């Protein structure tokens, strides 16, 4: 056996210290947010934010549900329905084209792949996109404005294609000889073989829809259609504007400042489901990222 030298030991200690610190830095802000949301408002105003709940209470959450429970629940409903419908449609759209492009017999697959690539390297930009979406498709103030613009991602398509390409083409041919159409091959052979990758892609889409507020910022003015993230965004941006001191004090008096604990509680409510799902879904994301990386 080779003896571990002092240098190696130092390196090891450094590695533990560095990684431990990085991990703490990543998780500390979240603990802080959680702790403030569970503190009493008065204590926070007095002592500032602290990572240990001060005077532990669920008052803030009770308050939120009593005062803006209906708005919040509606936003929750919007976010969940957008994420579910969006993810479901996105999986179908993405898996069909990914499968088709993974079949060698498809002659023009490179042409189609190039069209996909082209959307990555060149885009019309925000304004033409916005004008087209609002003037022609009437997505402004429209529930579908939250779904349609994000229902297909070329990145996810190429990622899924990598998985489909791993399936031996001979399996397809066997089914074809038995008289199955390509759609049957896709639904009965390819999809069942790619359950895990499909789950990975599905989770990626779901996260994207869950975290989306860009579409809402672009299209939605009606409060009844605000998704959760956009609701939080509005709570915060009012506060930012006020604390920068640019809004005349008279105006500020009219805007009801959400209390510190309320802001943090809304944040926790927004990320709550993610925190609970995280331990179970994390490995799929890691898998997806690793596959994407290897593809490069």
């Amino acid at each position: 056996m080779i003896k571990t030298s002092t240098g190696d030991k130092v390196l090891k200690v450094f590695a533990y210290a560095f990684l431990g610190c990085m991990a703490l830095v990543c998780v500390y802000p979240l603990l802080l947010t959680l702790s403030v949301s569970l503190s009493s408002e008065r204590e926070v105003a007095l002592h500032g934010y602290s990572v240990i709940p001060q005077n532990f209470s669920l008052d803030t959450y009770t308050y939120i549900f009593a005062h803006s429970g209906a708005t919040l629940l509606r936003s929750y409903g919007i976010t969940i329905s957008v994420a579910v419908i969006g993810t479901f449609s996105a999986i179908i759209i993405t898996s069909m084209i990914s499968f088709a492009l993974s079949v060698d017999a498809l002659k023009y697959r490179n042409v189609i792949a190039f069209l996909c690539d082209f959307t990555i390297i060149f885009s019309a930009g925000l304004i033409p996109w916005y004008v087209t979406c609002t003037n022609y498709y009437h997505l402004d103030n429209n529930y579908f404005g939250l779904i349609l613009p994000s229902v297909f991602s070329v990145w996810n398509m190429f990622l899924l294609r990598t998985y489909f390409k791993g399936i031996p083409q001979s399996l397809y041919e066997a089914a074809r000889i038995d008289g199955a159409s390509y759609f049957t091959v896709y639904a009965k052979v390819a999809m069942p073989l790619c359950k895990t990758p499909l789950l990975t892609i599905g989770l990626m889409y779901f996260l994207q829809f869950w975290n989306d507020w860009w579409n809402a910022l672009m299209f939605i003015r009606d409060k009844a259609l605000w998704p959760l993230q956009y609701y939080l965004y509005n709570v915060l941006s009012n506060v930012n504007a006020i604390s920068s001191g640019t809004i005349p004090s008279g105006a500020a008096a009219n805007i009801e400042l959400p209390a510190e604990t309320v802001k943090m509680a809304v944040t926790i409510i927004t990320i709550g489901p993610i925190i609970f799902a995280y331990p179970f879904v994390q490995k799929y994301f890691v898998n997806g990222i690793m596959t994407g990386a290897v593809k490069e």
Partner: protein
Amino acid sequence: MLSGNGDGAPQAKVKKKSTFAKEIKRNHTLYLMCGPALLFMLLFNFIPMRGLWMAFTKYDLRKGIFGSPFVGLDNFHYFFFGSGMGPRVIYNTLYINFFNLILGLIFPIAVAVLFNEIGGKLFKKFSQSMMFFPYFLSWVVVGAIIYGFFATDTGVVNRVLSNLGFETVRWYAEGKYWKPILIIANLWKWCGYNSIIYMAAMAGFDHSVFEAARVDGASKFKQIIYLTLPMLKPTAVVLTLMSVGRIFFGDFGMVYGIVGNNPVIGNDVAVIDTYVYSAMRTLGFSYSTAIGLLQSIMGLILVSLANMLAKKINDGEGLF
């Protein structure tokens, strides 16, 4: 199928002409399956490109995209010389992206390399999970967290400053601090994600090389310097080139999610993308389309170059 016919020549001609139709007919199911995605790209990527013409006009809603008066390059000229904002937002974008790029190289690589050096499985698992978590948060949530740190009265940073006897700062009224804050926030959000990419690369390493180095008595540190880092180079180069390709694109979500519409610090962190968004309301569609077009052209050039380079370098490295 009809090869028994005898007269090959005219038939071959017909065949050639209709290869396209034949292929479509033969694989129509597959093409139909591409349909929804192609329709999506047509609707949201290709049709909007017509709107680029607005960049050369003074857009008038009533006259439509192609009926509005043509003004040549006026919009572009105004961006660089008239608005007073052009050079500034370009500078901000490049500044933030440059530091994102550098820190986005150093930290994820350090994390990946050091994870390789430690044995504790439980520690590894937990700290990896913790580092990856910020990736799951939206920029709005990150904005809320940052508020918790920099709020004037209750924020953590000011409390620490006052406890240490320093002057507190009204962070949300001081623009000069926000570029670094955004850069750190970006690092915080993406470090775990990017380190996974490097760990994926390291998982593919040939372990016999490290074994040989160990037998030869090379210290862990030397192994990192002379083996791990050079072997990570192709991955780092590819990721860097991808960032360089998008260096003229600011992260709208990051800037807007954290700073929002704060008018005081807005100018100090305005990137091209947020400027386009705000110019849309104040300076009109044509002007902001022009800026977007400039950005897209720079993107097209840089991404294509980066892509070419990446392929070249990757193949070169692949021989080792």
